[in-house]
């Protein structure tokens, strides 16, 4: 922590602020994970952390370390890229699995197996024409 | 010991490791080549062990120290060659040769990667005998255990898997205890090198003694599980009985690794020179050993099949050794080592023999019966009884019977073989240790334990032998190959040699015991071992 003492105040302030917001957002996300009622709703919540939560934290880290090491520190970008690519993988797989499990369990809260093609196309045409 | 000769110390570890690793680069079906490699490695190991034995003996009390990575002790890992480790190396390589030869008849085909696993087992055993570092000992224990897991399960089948599960679970628990013990010892003393540890122990502050002793005790439990002390030994008979014969024959030295470590560490760390901690836990060893003998005896009497009987004999042997090690006495240590040699050879031979003897009883080996390929591709060459068991050598039953008699005599400690000598030496030493012209209660107890366990062995072995060899029902003469009989003969011959050459052997063992009871030389030898970098030039970073 002694290293931080020599940094300009605005760096410290900005870093602290970003970190705080990021942590708060993440916490809110997990609170949502607790509070929301259905699985599908709950799945949305943690994405607060995986998107802006991480983004702000990385931003804070970049600013802080760039100032600390007096050179641009950008490798945090990699984390952002990795998260962007890997989060959809998990969520897509997991939510689809949940859908299957709900359908199999006979839940009426989820869309049934895909409706006949014709109705869908009709609906689509309507939207397109708007 | 200098120059190239110096590297000989590490060969017992490196050679099987290299050969095992090399075999992994070969295609699976090249069994003949692998077998030859394995055999080659084992034969070289024997010669190396003999050379090392002579080195250890020739150097008098000097010990050979190998600084790995050329880092000085106590910082780097050291291998230490002394009379004891040289002896154990020889024993393990001899058993390895016997087991390997035996396996060549059929067992090495019963599953993939037999030969590499076998070599890796040797790596673990030899490493454990050589290392002078507590954590490195753990690593070699694990190498040995890992390979033994593989060998226990070799051939598959319900019995093996069931026993293997227990074996693995218990040994994993023991390994965790090992780690806890090492950690505590390091946390208090700050070193892992055994010699350094022995050096630091007497100076351990009083307020740290509790922790140190707790660490040592927990570590000890880990070794006692391996050695098979009651009540930590129940896995042993089942596992050894379930393992294939060559594996079981090798395992008989694995419990001796536990004994070896206790002997080595206990005398080094808690020997007479250890100051306030001297003799820590000795009476526990003694009474625990006696109880183990008792349990082994009971088990031997109660066992109906020979494999379990053999397993219980392992316990009797372990218990006897533990009990006598609990009495710190040089002559006893020497006697214990003789007993160790004799009983290990005998039990190994017995494990090999059982397979052959029972082959005739349950016609059609059961190895593959359970693995019927209802599931999975048939990658293994099926073992056809006719072609595999080969020519029946003449007088098979007579030879098997004779071998059985030898084993029985050895295990019961009856003349004329080394079992008797071993018991005599042990008991004579125990009596002598209790002072002239008196016999202490402990000595009586030990005497009784040894005599009664021998009696039980007579009863149990006779029962088993009569049932197997004198059975009235027309049992088919087992088809046995020469290569299966030879190793048994080899081991038994060694027991005969031990009997005839008891004098010279005891001379060596007495030197060994003396060195063990005067660990200062070991400590100084390890801690003052010179680095190569100091003599040769160049090198280092």
């Amino acid at each position: 922590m002694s290293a931080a003492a020599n940094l300009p105040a605005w760096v410290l302030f900005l870093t602290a602020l970003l970190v705080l917001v990021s942590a708060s957002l993440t916490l809110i996300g997990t609170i949502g994970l607790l509070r929301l009622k259905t699985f599908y709703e709950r799945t949305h919540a943690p994405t607060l952390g995986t998107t802006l939560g991480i983004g702000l934290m990385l931003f804070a880290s970049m600013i802080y370390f760039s100032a600390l090491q007096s050179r641009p520190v950008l490798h945090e970008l990699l984390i952002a890229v990795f998260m962007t690519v890997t989060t959809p993988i998990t969520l897509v797989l997991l939510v689809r699995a949940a859908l299957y499990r709900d359908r199999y369990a006979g839940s009426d809260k989820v869309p049934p197996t895909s409706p006949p093609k014709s109705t869908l196309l009709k609906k689509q045409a309507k939207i397109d024409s708007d | 010991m200098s120059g190239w000769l110096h590297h000989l110390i590490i060969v017992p570890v490196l050679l099987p490791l290299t050969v095992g690793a090399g075999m992994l680069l070969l295609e699976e079906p090249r069994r003949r080549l692998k077998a030859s490699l394995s055999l080659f490695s084992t034969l070289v190991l024997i010669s190396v062990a003999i050379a090392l034995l002579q080195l250890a003996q020739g150097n008098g009390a000097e010990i050979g120290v190998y600084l790995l990575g050329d880092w000085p002790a106590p910082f780097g890992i050291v291998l230490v060659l002394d009379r004891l480790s040289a002896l154990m190396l020889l024993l393990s390589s001899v058993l390895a040769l016997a087991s390997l030869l035996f396996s060549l008849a059929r067992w090495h085909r019963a599953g993939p990667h037999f030969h590499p696993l076998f070599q890796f087992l040797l790596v673990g055993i030899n490493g454990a005998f050589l290392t002078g570092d507590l954590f490195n000992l753990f690593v070699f224990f694990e190498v040995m255990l890992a390979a033994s897991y593989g060998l226990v399960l070799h051939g598959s089948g319900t019995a093996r898997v069931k026993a293997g599960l227990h074996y693995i679970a218990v040994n994993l628990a023991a390994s965790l205890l090992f780690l806890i013990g090492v950690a505590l010892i390091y946390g208090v003393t700050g070193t892992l090198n055994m010699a350094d540890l022995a050096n630091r122990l007497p100076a351990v502050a009083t307020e740290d003694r509790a922790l140190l002793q707790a660490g040592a005790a927990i570590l000890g439990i880990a070794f006692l599980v391996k050695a098979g002390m009651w009540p930590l030994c129940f896995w042993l008979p089942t596992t050894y009985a379930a393992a294939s014969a060559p594996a079981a024959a090798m395992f008989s030295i694995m419990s001796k690794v536990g004994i070896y470590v206790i002997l080595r560490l206990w005398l080094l760390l808690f020997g007479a020179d250890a100051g306030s901690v001297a003799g820590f836990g000795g009476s526990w060893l003694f009474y625990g050993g006696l109880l183990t003998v008792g349990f082994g005896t009971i088990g031997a009497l109660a066992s109906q099949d020979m494999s379990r009987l053999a397993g219980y004999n392992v316990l009797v042997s372990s218990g006897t050794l533990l009990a006598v090690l609990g009495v710190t006495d040089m002559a006893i240590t020497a006697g214990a080592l003789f007993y160790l040699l004799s009983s290990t050879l005998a039990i190994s031979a017995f494990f090999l023999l059982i397979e052959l003897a029972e082959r005739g009883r349950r016609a059609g080996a059961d190895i593959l019966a359970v693995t019927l390929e209802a599931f999975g591709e048939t990658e293994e060459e099926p073992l056809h009884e006719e072609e595999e068991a080969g020519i029946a050598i003449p007088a098979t039953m007579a030879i098997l019977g004779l071998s059985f008699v030898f084993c029985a005599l050895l295990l019961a400690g009856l003349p004329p073989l080394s079992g008797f000598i071993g018991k005599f030496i042990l008991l004579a030493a125990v009596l002598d240790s209790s002072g002239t012209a008196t016999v202490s209660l402990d000595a009586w107890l030990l005497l009784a334990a040894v005599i009664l366990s021998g009696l039980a062995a007579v009863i149990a072995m006779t029962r088993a032998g009569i049932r197997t060899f004198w059975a009235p029902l027309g049992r088919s003469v087992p088809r046995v190959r020469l290569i299966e009989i030879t190793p048994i003969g080899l081991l038994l011959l060694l027991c005969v040699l031990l009997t005839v050459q008891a004098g010279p052997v005891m001379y060596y063992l007495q030197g060994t015991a003396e060195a063990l009871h005067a660990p200062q030389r070991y400590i100084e030898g390890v801690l003052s071992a010179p680095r190569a970098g100091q003599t040769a030039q160049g090198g280092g970073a």
Partner: protein
Amino acid sequence: MKRWLPFPRLAALILIAWLLLNQSLAPSHILLGALLALLSTQLLVRLQPPRGHASRFWTALVLLGRVLLDIIRSNIAVAGIILRRRPERNRTAGFVHIGLTSRHPYVLAALACIITATPGTIWVDYESASGVLIIHVLDLVDEEAWIQTITQRYESLLREIFE
């Protein structure tokens, strides 16, 4: 060229990643990074990723801007929903079926990234035969609006980039 550098853009990205990882622009790192980029993309050929080319850098940038904006907006929105005294009040969550025009794997993949990265929407199912995508929306006020957003705001740009 194609043979040696089957995925030039990906290789470039990997080189950049390597340099970022090592936080260095030393010649040795550039050389090593280039080598690794080449080798790793060579190996990737074996895995036969779907063919595709990404062009229109500016379009991509526009899309990126849109998405970032959406992410920030929806982060706030979702946080608001969660922090309500009763998150369920005045809100219905639900599934939306969307017929997609593009079958291009990269379009779909990118779309999945966007939908997932935007709090409030998740990718639920995609039926390749009909091209129907199901998403789940946390605060579903207007189904049509969501269809619009996905197809017009994102898909069309993605098609421009990848097709």
